[in-house]
């Protein structure tokens, strides 16, 4: 009975559009899972026996060590900048997020360029001091090397989330512990770490998902993981079914990470139940302690941003004349084009689903919201496999249609930019969605309800009231997803149309061809644009503490 009553409220354009978007997102992922159980693959047994154990070993080693080190760096730095005052603390608060502006594959080849035989360190040692070093101490192209890069360039996820938590939520607990006579270390290990568990787990799971998503760094470093294996079986062995099986296995690992995250976080969410938020009063550090804190922050900032950035700048000046050509302008145009279209579609989809799910508190609307953010957990290579199988199927279905309108019967959709952009939308919809959703959360439903009481239907209300009020979050969601797409590598590498290059694929290819210096211009553009965005968002976040 209730359903019949509810129907009039449900039957509108928002529900239909949300339904369509959800299906579009689910299709490639479901197709992978179905194929995993149904399709035979030529090389699967061979892969299971000889390759899979190595993949599992490498993947778990990288995840475990990156996870532990990122927690260590992220929480210690977050605690320092939240609880203490020391020189340049304000700067480090946002500067320590900057490593995120450098994608791991760019960081990887930059560090290799710094450390290898012709790099700045070894040449200086040789030419200035006459010291020749044992190469094995300077070889970064190893599994520990990959852990080093991942840690340095992904720890800001732990850092930002933990810092936000400490800044807003913990003041009374920490002050109480201090009053009870605990010293700084005790407070850190017995109060800070346990109460920020939820935040730390959340940040770390983001780090791990990024590690699983990475293709560029592990490929360049020659450390086989799932992403590289998927590429290899698909393009090297031409065995898409094995690639699908690998993708599904990787998806199971992702689900495991997500489930473990949920279990570890327990019922604790990021926030306390009390509405009163009081910021933590920082303690002024003096003398040696102040300079130790400063040096620690500066050291990590240098390793995670300053050194690679300066090196990239240096290389850029070396190669600028050679690289800056009309072809390079095309690259920039391509990058901006796909990022713009992708981010625009993400914004529209995000608004549709967020608006639908806040208006209807039902099982379907909640699932729609969950599905929307699912894509962000799924590694690029997996989405690429899923979406191209779906698109090839669609093309096969449309085969006769293509013929009937006189087109050369080809794989029209699966060789078009459309496929790449759909993949971006699936992978990064969560970025736009989270931003829009938090905007809707902030304004609540009352304005919408007021408008409907004044006789406007849902769609008119949306354009006249809601859209105006979520303009800010919508724009930030757009910018964030724009940057994610700009940096994206594995999806772009696999799904781009023939001869279509972007800044990130260009940088990766140059680096892969041992033309590290030539890769720097494209990398610098990516890093600078991302860096500016991080700066702007930090300023915005600082103004609104919640």
């Amino acid at each position, binding site marked *: *009975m*209730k359903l*019949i*009553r*509810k*129907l*009039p*409220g449900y039957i509108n354009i928002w529900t239909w559009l949300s339904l369509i978007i959800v299906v579009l997102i689910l299709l490639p992922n479901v197709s992978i899972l179905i194929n995993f159980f149904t399709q035979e693959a030529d090389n699967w047994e061979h892969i299971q026996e000889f390759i899979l154990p190595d993949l599992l070993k490498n993947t778990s080693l990288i995840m475990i060590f990156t996870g532990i080190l990122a927690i260590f760096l992220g929480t210690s730095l977050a605690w320092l900048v939240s609880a203490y005052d020391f020189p340049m603390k304000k700067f480090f608060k946002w500067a320590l997020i900057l490593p995120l502006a450098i994608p791991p594959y760019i960081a990887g080849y930059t560090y290799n360029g710094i450390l290898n035989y012709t790099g700045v360190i070894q040449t200086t040692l040789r030419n200035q001091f006459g010291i020749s070093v044992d190469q094995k101490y300077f070889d970064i192209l190893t599994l520990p090397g990959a852990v080093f890069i991942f840690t340095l360039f992904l720890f800001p996820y732990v850092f930002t989330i933990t810092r936000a938590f400490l800044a807003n939520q913990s003041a009374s607990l920490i002050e109480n512990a201090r009053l009870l006579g605990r010293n700084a270390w005790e407070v850190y290990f017995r109060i800070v770490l346990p109460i920020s568990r939820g935040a730390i787990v959340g940040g770390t799971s983001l780090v791990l998902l990024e590690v699983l998503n990475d293709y560029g760094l592990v490929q360049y470093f020659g450390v086989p993981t799932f992403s590289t294996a998927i590429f290899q079986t698909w393009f090297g062995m031409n065995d898409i079914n094995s690639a699908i099986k690998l993708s599904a296995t990787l998806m199971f690992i992702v689900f495991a990470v997500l489930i473990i995250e949920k279990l570890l976080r327990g019922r604790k969410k990021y926030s306390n139940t009390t509405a009163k938020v009081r910021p933590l009063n920082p303690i002024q550090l003096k003398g040696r302690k102040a300079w130790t804190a400063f040096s620690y922050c500066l050291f990590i900032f240098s390793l995670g941003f300053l050194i690679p950035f300066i090196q990239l700048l240096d290389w850029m000046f070396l190669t600028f004349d050679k690289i800056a050509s009309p072809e390079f302008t095309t690259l920039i145009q391509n990058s901006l084009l796909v990022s713009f279209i992708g981010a625009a579609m993400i914004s529209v989809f995000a608004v549709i689903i967020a608006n639908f799910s806040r208006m209807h*508190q*039902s099982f379907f609307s909640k699932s729609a919201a969950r599905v929307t953010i699912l894509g962000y957990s799924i590694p690029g290579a997996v989405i690429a496999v899923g979406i191209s199988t779906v698109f090839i199927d669609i093309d096969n279905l449309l085969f006769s249609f293509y013929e009937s309108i006189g087109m050369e019967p080809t794989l029209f959709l699966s060789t078009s930019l459309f496929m790449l952009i759909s993949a971006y939308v699936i992978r990064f919809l969560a970025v736009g969605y989270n931003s829009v959703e938090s905007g809707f959360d902030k304004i609540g439903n*009352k*304005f919408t*309800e*007021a*408008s*409907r*009481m*004044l*006789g*406007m*239907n849902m769609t008119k209300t949306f354009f*006249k*009231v809601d859209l*105006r*009020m979520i303009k800010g979050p919508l724009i930030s969601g757009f910018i964030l997803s724009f940057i994610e797409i700009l940096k994206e590598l594995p999806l772009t590498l696999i799904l781009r149309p023939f001869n279509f290059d972007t800044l990130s694929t260009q940088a990766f290819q140059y680096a892969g061809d041992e033309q590290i210096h030539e890769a720097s211009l494209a990398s610098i553009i990516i890093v600078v644009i991302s860096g500016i965005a991080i700066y702007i968002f930090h300023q915005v976040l600082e103004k609104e503490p919640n």
Partner: protein
Amino acid sequence: MFIQIKDLCFCYGNSKDDTIKNFDLEIDKGEIISILGESGSGKSTILRLLCGLETPSKGQISIAGKVMTDDRRFVLPEKRGIGMVFQDYALFPHMTVAENIQFGLKGYGRKAKKERTNEVLDLVNMAKYSKRYPHELSGGQQQRIALARALAPKPALLLLDEPFSNLDADLQIKIRSELKDIIKRTGTTSIFVTHDREDSKAIADRIITMRDGAAHDWESICTTRQEKSKLELVDMK
């Protein structure tokens, strides 16, 4: 009867118990009804059910002879012709006072829109403020604008959700009598929800008290007992 609510039941998605249980109420045209109850008694839910922002699981609502919801029908909130003053007013922050009021005046011509806006602004004594933005008004002024906005489309029924909860005590007493005045002048049938007995006494023609999701008449409260014996009735005097 102008408004008829029969056997209304409602429960929120995740709870087992009905928030509203077999709620019955009849209201005459032009009457001002106050629903009085503690927080959590379901009084605001009644308003949300009346205006269609929530969907009842059972029961029937009809207003001015038209069925708003029963087992087969459900009229969407924007089609019900009900005005509502929200607890925190919900004035659109990106529109001026005049724009807020004109928002609900669909189907009015340009001139008619302007006239009606001035009319209701005069009614609430805020004619001077039409160009202001909501954040440039005090709490009491915002409330008057919210009232004007709700009355502008000449609703069949006006709902007010805790209209005084955001005002300080002095203002509350002053605005209370004003409010009754304004509503009586327009002759609009009104229901307002409050937890403050004084508010109810000052404004309402009839007071309904709510406990555990069911209604009890003010007059009958100490004389008759409803058959549902588990509902504990208290002396309201």
